[in-house]
């Protein structure tokens, strides 16, 4: 079980060690100590390993993650799990702005709150937030699921494509072209699965959520809107 002291050895040594892990490896458990809010911790990992960061992280922790499970025992700065491809990222505390931005796959779990622009332009990632999310979340979100046990801020899902948004609490306002939609059996099934995988099944039941999605009115140019551009 490698333990890595980031304060002593530095970011470049950490990430080059992690990048050297390819395919099957016996070094499956990594503990990173002394993160001290550093940027770009465990970015670009591409191996089925478990990485635990003991403390809070700065910008872009676990960005572009593939296969790995990264757990942050603290809070995460801006852009956690940005453009994640697969794997799992779990933040025990809060996440700053644009958590999971542009993510293409995998699961991002935030046990606390996420601030503005959570899941902006998400493209297939699943995000489960145990707390609340800030304004402009899921802006231009294309696919994947965003599950929020708390409240959502202003302009949720503005210019949304086909991502599904599930919110249990209040939505301060919906963005352009985002509407509430009927919750069908298939959605309850998705929620049941994500709540369990997101370590939230003891906190909330699928029936407590509302579903929001795209009204699909902004997909094509509409000449009647020309004056608005």
């Amino acid at each position: 079980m490698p333990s890595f002291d980031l304060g002593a050895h530095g970011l470049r040594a950490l990430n080059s060690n992690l990048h050297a892990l390819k395919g099957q490896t016996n070094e499956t458990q990594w503990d990173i100590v002394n993160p001290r809010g550093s940027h770009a911790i465990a970015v670009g990992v591409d191996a089925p390993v478990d990485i635990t960061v003991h403390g809070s992280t700065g910008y872009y922790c676990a960005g572009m993650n593939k296969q790995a499970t990264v757990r942050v025992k603290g809070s995460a700065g801006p852009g956690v799990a940005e453009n994640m491809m697969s794997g799992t990222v779990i933040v025990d505390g809060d996440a700053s702005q644009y958590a999971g931005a542009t993510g293409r796959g995998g699961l991002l779990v935030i046990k606390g709150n996420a601030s503005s622009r959570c899941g902006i332009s998400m493209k297939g990632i699943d995000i489960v937030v145990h707390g609340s999310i800030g304004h402009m979340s899921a802006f231009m979100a294309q696919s994947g699921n965003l599950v929020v046990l708390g409240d959502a801020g202003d302009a949720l899902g503005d210019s949304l494509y086909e991502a599904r948004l599930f919110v249990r609490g209040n939505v301060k306002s919906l963005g352009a072209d985002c509407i509430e939609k009927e919750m069908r059996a298939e959605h309850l099934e998705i929620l049941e699965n994500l709540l369990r995988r997101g370590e939230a099944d003891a906190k909330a039941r699928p029936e407590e959520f509302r579903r929001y999605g795209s009204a699909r009115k902004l997909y094509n140019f509409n000449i009647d809107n020309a004056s608005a551009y």
Partner: protein
Amino acid sequence: MCGIVGLFLKDPSLEPKLGAMLADMLVTMTDRGPDSAGIAIYSGARDGIGKITVQSAQPEADFRNLDEDLKNAIGTPVLLLIKSTHAVLEVPLDQLEAARTALAHLRPAVKIMSVGDSIEIFKEVGLPKDVAARFDIARMKGTHGIGHTRMATESAVTTMGAHPFSTGSDQCLVHNGSLSNHNSVRRTLKKAGMTFETENDTEVAAAFLSHKMEDGAGLGQAMEATLTDLDGFFTFVVGTKNGFGVVRDPIACKPAVMAETDQYVAFGSEYRALVDLPGIEDARVWEPEPATVYFWER
């Protein structure tokens, strides 16, 4: 980018360490802006004493006999403490305005950084560690302070373009972001009698707050007004003689992290700036909400 740090002490036992804590915090933010750096320290008011912090490009010539010359002009003793390109002049509080007027005649090239009975501002072009060393910030004590390291976007990299900006007695402001309507706000403020040293957008924000407070607004009210009257991106951290405030614009893309314990309230552009503060592990750490004013006063 730009990096901001701030510290408002609740526990007087930390006051001797204020400068050292703030300088360390600022150095961690160096890679957010290497152009210039500055620190405002509220060192605590002493009965009847007023302070003017001045800066000169030719400190040897300008500061030579400045205390004697000023004493002769205003007729009361003056204490002069030179720190590199800056100097702090101590005069009787009721002679502050007279001293300021006399300075403009005696040393026209000298720039005034701050005026008040607690505030001192030191700022120069260069890295935070060099600026902090040059002014011996680590040995300064005080009740609260604000630091800034600048990545210039709106105006030139000069001493006067560095933050903090002070446009009123014992007031200062630092800024991460850029304002888009600063020219029109500056014109309005000029008509109302405010004066400006630079073309910098942040100076306009500082003067906007000073003007509101001159008109009777409290710190919180003045900060609320920035949300309606100033357009652009901003995270502001503001100091007054007894107060410390934070406000972010409604879009809030300029980062901000705060921490509070029984001993202090701290601000950092990033969590990295806060990691060495005492008791940070158990502090309440949060991100200030968009378009929300936070302030503390003692």
